[in-house]
């Protein structure tokens, strides 16, 4: 069996707007290893959600996948090139929600308000598996108790509005995992939750991942969640991956100035009251992408005439498994 479960190569996604074409994802390459949790971190508008939506072809007009490849390697069977699948084809429906499923950020809007929790989970089961209604219901009850919902037998007949935010997110997770997917894409799964509930959901995801062997792609803006959940991390900025490594290397010895800046500007629980180091300026809009390295206008290490011209810097391997897209990484001291 292949150790990779998903390989994205040079993915470009653009949106045709009235002001012209905006490229939200600009050449992203990413490899997900089987049975590991991969995190994508970045600020609003960096393209992390668009990247994850492309994997399931969920980009809607005016957006479209411009070029690139997304290859999925199922446990059994031949590799599938997802970008080649027709939007309405049966193979895509089998993958969507079956082999690859997704958890969305808002547990309030991800569930239908007019159907019971049970009917929504059973629908997912019966779309992908040939089972009777009764079997599907039993599977749903079992899944609900597995995600820690007490009294699953009763809860299954309730509507989403009768559940709290944390419970709803558990239902969404149950729905995503009920067909035993090989990849779970989680887009900010804990952002809308309170911190004690977030901790519960994080533990649940970690336990389920260990028990079921699912590979997870976790999209978040919270470096704390990344540190506690992920095995590998990619940092995105303006539609490009700027740094990629295992979680310990990335957070302890980052090499890209943007990653360093992000880590430094976190007010930490361990730090005293002093001025926070911050990154100058703000993220430019996608239609005003600077030439050269996208981070160069805000970068303290940028060299005029070198960093801000021509194409964005390519990803270079500075150590096995540690890639940095920065022309000056060799000149920059290791910082954390």
């Amino acid at each position: 069996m292949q150790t990779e479960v998903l390989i994205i190569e040079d993915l470009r996604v653009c949106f045709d707007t009235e002001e012209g074409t905006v490229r939200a994802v600009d050449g992203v390459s990413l490899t997900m290893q089987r049975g590991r949790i991969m995190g994508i971190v970045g600020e609003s508008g960096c393209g992390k959600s668009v990247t994850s939506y492309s994997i399931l072809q969920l980009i809607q007009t005016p957006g479209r996948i411009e070029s690139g490849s997304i290859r999925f390697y199922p446990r059994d069977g031949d590799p599938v090139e997802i970008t080649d699948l027709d939007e309405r084809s049966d193979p895509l429906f089998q993958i969507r929600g079956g082999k690859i499923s997704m958890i969305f950020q808002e547990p309030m809007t991800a569930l239908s308000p007019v159907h019971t929790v049970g009917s929504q989970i059973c629908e997912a089961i019966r779309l992908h598996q040939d089972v009777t209604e009764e079997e599907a219901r039993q599977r749903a009850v079992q899944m609900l108790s597995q995600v820690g919902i007490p009294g699953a037998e009763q809860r299954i007949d309730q509507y989403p509005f009768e559940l709290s935010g944390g419970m709803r997110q558990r239902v969404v997770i149950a729905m995503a995992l009920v067909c035993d997917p090989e990849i779970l894409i989680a887009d900010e799964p804990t952002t809308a939750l309170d911190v004690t509930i977030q901790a519960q959901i994080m533990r649940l995801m970690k336990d389920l991942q260990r028990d079921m062997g699912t590979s997870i792609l976790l999209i978040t803006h919270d470096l704390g969640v990344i540190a506690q959940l992920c095995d590998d991390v990619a940092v995105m900025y303006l539609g490009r991956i700027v740094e990629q490594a295992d979680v310990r290397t990335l957070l302890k010895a980052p090499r890209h100035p943007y990653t360093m800046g992000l880590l430094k500007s976190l007010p930490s629980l361990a730090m005293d009251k002093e001025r926070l180091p911050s990154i100058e300026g703000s993220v430019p809009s996608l239609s005003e992408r600077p030439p050269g390295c996208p981070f160069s206008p805000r970068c303290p290490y940028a060299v005029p005439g070198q960093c801000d011209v021509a194409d964005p810097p390519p990803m270079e391997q500075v150590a096995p498994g540690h890639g940095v897209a920065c022309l000056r990484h060799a000149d920059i001291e290791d910082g954390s």
Partner: protein
Amino acid sequence: MTRDQQPILQVQDLCMHFPIYAKNFLRRQVGLVRAADQINFDLMPGETLGLVGESGCGKTTTGRAILRALQPTSGQVLFRHDGSVIDLAQLDRKQLKPLRTQMQMIFQDPFSSLNPRMTVRDIVGEPLVIHSQAKGTELEDRVTDMLQRVGLKPEHRTRYPHAFSGGQRQRIGIARALIMRPSLVICDEAVSALDVSVQAQVINLLQELQADLGLTYIFIAHDLSVVKHICDRIAVMYAGRIVELAPTQTLFASPKHPYTTALLASVPNPDPDQRMEYGLTGEVADTGNLPPGCAFHPRCPSKLPHCSQTVPELTEFPEAHCISCHLFSPDQAD
């Protein structure tokens, strides 16, 4: 700060309750949401007090009741202004208006808190117009001065909010709040909607402005690391009550209330070697249907038999550390 050791604000037994009425035509009262209950604290001039807690714990309600955006159910809000002490909870609209200049609020969402049809000049200058404090070139000058103080350019005056990024919009909101030269500013999740790199800039700005203008802040937030960074003292709220109130260092070094301990342990640490604990089970108590006794007891890992019967009082311990928990009540010493 040193010449005036009187508190600028004293909140005493402040309660904000919302009745729930039946949906039939009789409109009989069927319940009561105790959104904020028995809130007590003092605030010194120049100090920053943090109000932290999870959604629905009453931190925003408390802030609004202090500013009289809500009419408190009971309790006193003693505000010191020009040497005299005024109970804000007793004033009517007319009496409140001159005091409004002294108390301002910075809101969470920089997208919905600015009127999209007004230019930055009109937004920032509006308080001066409402209180007839400036017009013409003086108005223009004060707006320009304020914009520069918050890190915006004078030419931004004629633009509309949509032309600005989230961080810049929050700066506009700050300028609007500070142009009246208030003494008390309530920041309600003022940096929560911002990205990390911009959040750090706004936190620094708030701290600089506090030092320059001698502001007193009440900083409402759910992010403990931000609160730790900016606050002198922190009040932790749970289900409408303050469960622990202590100087920031004390609270983080030795949290006493089981809820505070669990809350601190639940924050995901960005250091992968510091493993987080996933302690707390259950969900936040519903302020419309509180459990008897201490509201936290159904989730509390160290509850005592009488925790489900009597509500603990907020009691002061050495080093200005106030705790509301039976584990620490005097008769529980041994």
